[in-house]
């Protein structure tokens, strides 16, 4: 694990009208690391992801890319930096085949004509290196199972050679077997040296693949935990706020006053 994070968020704040959605959020992702971003509904996970993906820029704070501050104000700039986002509602076209979906928006063109052969070759190569198994790269994605569709969506994000991949609830609504497929794929992304931000509600998934867990609660950091040395109860209490009560707040205040 290298020392400099590929992506670091420093003091990110965002408000929608009267609602302060994010307050001074910090997050670091290093190459070859899976960071799970967890939190209860409304904790600000999606908003945070949107600031990284350039969909909804932050009001305040700095995004550092490989150590230098950058502005990510459009999805395009995020993609150019090397941040790929796989959204929860799979962004696939049901009527196009797997190759068509993988290369949608970045088709390989030879002499003004789609180079289907090259696209098919690259698609098969990519799916093979990720050990993704689908019946054929030439069937419409509508024919695929939910897990297969999710793996195709993730594979699609890798075509732009990103350094950080954000997965928004990749295992929601998937069966046991299919979830395992997706988690396998997440591990393969890590082996390739990518930084992965995994948003999930499923503690089992998080503990299975994540290296660190960053907890958001009410728009603030509520602790970052090493998965190997932390029990599930500690993480859950951080999510639900069981550690954030009158007693702990008083402790923190007195500690501050003593300084």
């Amino acid at each position, binding site marked *: 694990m290298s020392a400099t994070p590929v992506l670091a968020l420093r003091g990110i704040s965002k408000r929608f009208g009267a609602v302060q959605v994010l307050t001074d959020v910090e997050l670091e992702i290093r190459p070859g690391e899976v960071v799970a971003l967890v939190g209860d509904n409304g904790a600000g996970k999606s908003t945070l992801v949107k600031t990284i993906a350039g969909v909804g820029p932050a009001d305040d704070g700095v995004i550092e890319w490989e150590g230098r501050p950058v502005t990510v104000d459009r999805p395009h700039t995020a993609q150019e930096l090397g941040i790929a986002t796989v959204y929860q509602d799979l962004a696939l076209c049901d*009527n196009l085949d797997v190759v068509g979906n993988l290369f949608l928006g970045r088709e390989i063109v030879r002499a003004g004509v789609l180079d289907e052969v090259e696209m098919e*070759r690259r698609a098969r190569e990519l799916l093979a290196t990720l050990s993704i198994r689908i019946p054929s790269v030439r069937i419409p994605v509508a*024919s695929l199972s939910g897990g297969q569709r999710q793996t195709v969506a993730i594979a699609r994000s890798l075509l732009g050679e990103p350094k950080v991949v954000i997965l928004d609830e990749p295992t929601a609504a998937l069966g046991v077997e299919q979830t395992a497929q997706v988690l396998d794929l997440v591990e393969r992304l890590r082996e390739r040296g990518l930084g992965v931000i995994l948003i999930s509600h499923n503690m089992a998934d998080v503990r299975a693949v994540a290296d660190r867990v960053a907890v958001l609660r009410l728009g603030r950091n509520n602790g970052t935990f090493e998965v190997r040395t932390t029990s599930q109860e500690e993480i859950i209490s951080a999510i639900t706020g069981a550690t954030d009560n009158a007693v702990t707040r008083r402790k923190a205040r007195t500690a501050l006053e003593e300084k």
Partner: protein
Amino acid sequence: MSTDLPTTTDTGDNSQALADDTSGAAAAFTVDPRLLLQEEGLAGYWNTFRRKLRSGELGSLPMVVGLIIIALIFQLRDAAFLGPENLSNLFVTAAGTGLIAVGIVFVLILGEIDLSVGSVSGLAAAVFAVVNVNHGVPEWLALVIALGSGAVIGALHGFFFARVGVPAFVVTLAGLLGWNGLMLQVLGSNGTINLDDTGLIASLTNHYFTDISAGYALATLGVAAFFLFSFRDARRRKAVGVPSRPLSEIVLRSVALAVPAYVVAWLFNQYKGLPLAAVIFLGVVVALDLVLRRTSYGRKVFALGGNVEAARRAGINVSLIRISVFALSGTMAALGGMFLASQINAANQSSGAGSLLMNAIAAAVIGGTSLFGGRGKTWSALLGVLVIQSIASGMALLGIASAIQYMITGAVLLAAVVIDSVSRRVQRTTGRA
């Protein structure tokens, strides 16, 4: 360039199994028993065909069968139906509506509808007549102006739909009324403008390449191009290790294309020769088929028909594609209008009126383009318009009133939509929606 004529049994599917490839990167796969396998040889094709039939991937097959049945019925009642004269005239009269239907195919793939094409075709004919006959502008320039006005009108519809957010149905319904009004205005008090009966527009439907070699040459060219492109494609695929068609299949497909091509060429030569209208219509169908299936523009059109949000996130300029598709529909409507004007050699107050709009939309749907968006081919315009025109021409031969003709065309259209809906449902239940 694999331009499947609708007459081949294959529905243009090139999905082959991963498993029939033993070289390249995929060799690392262990074969999953659930993979789609295609066995070698003819038995393999038959099995693949049966599997597709069961899972509802019918494509154009029902209507090809339907067209054959219609032809046989009329042929049994009146031997002139399949005669050279009738078939040649059938192609020439079908060209106008067919060209309009090609534009409709694009709009339907987006999952939208264009109700204005009839009025736009009439307006384009009126514009041509006024500019050319009344103002003495040369025919070619008048043609450009007429087609250009179709494109601008279409783009205007597209703008209101894509940018302002008015449903396409309403925008083009307004167009249906508005452009018809403008056409009447443009034609003026006279109501009918006769065109030069030896001019460019007249020759669109009355010019025939009388040299018998013309038809055969075109058929040869088409088949040779099809074979060469398929062969080159297969060789490249083999070289990089992705599934390719075996040579036997390429030859089989080429023969399947050659047979109808030469039969039609022979039929045309039995009458006046190869009609210019048929050449232009086929040329447009082939060219736009290539645009749709072989360019990134066509891929984007399909993507929009599948999932607009996914297309937007993939960086596709959704508004631009939508506007361009409506502009194309307007242009094709104008081009079709030229052929319809050519048939009567005039632009008059009933240009683009009557059942033209419904026939154009029906042709696209009957030919197998889905009303639900995301699926379709330009070839379906050809197939559909041949079905509709066959019914009209057969009924006329038998002296049956147009009342019956409308009812039968309506029944065929309903059958086509039922087949589309049922096949979608079957595809869903077999997990291939």
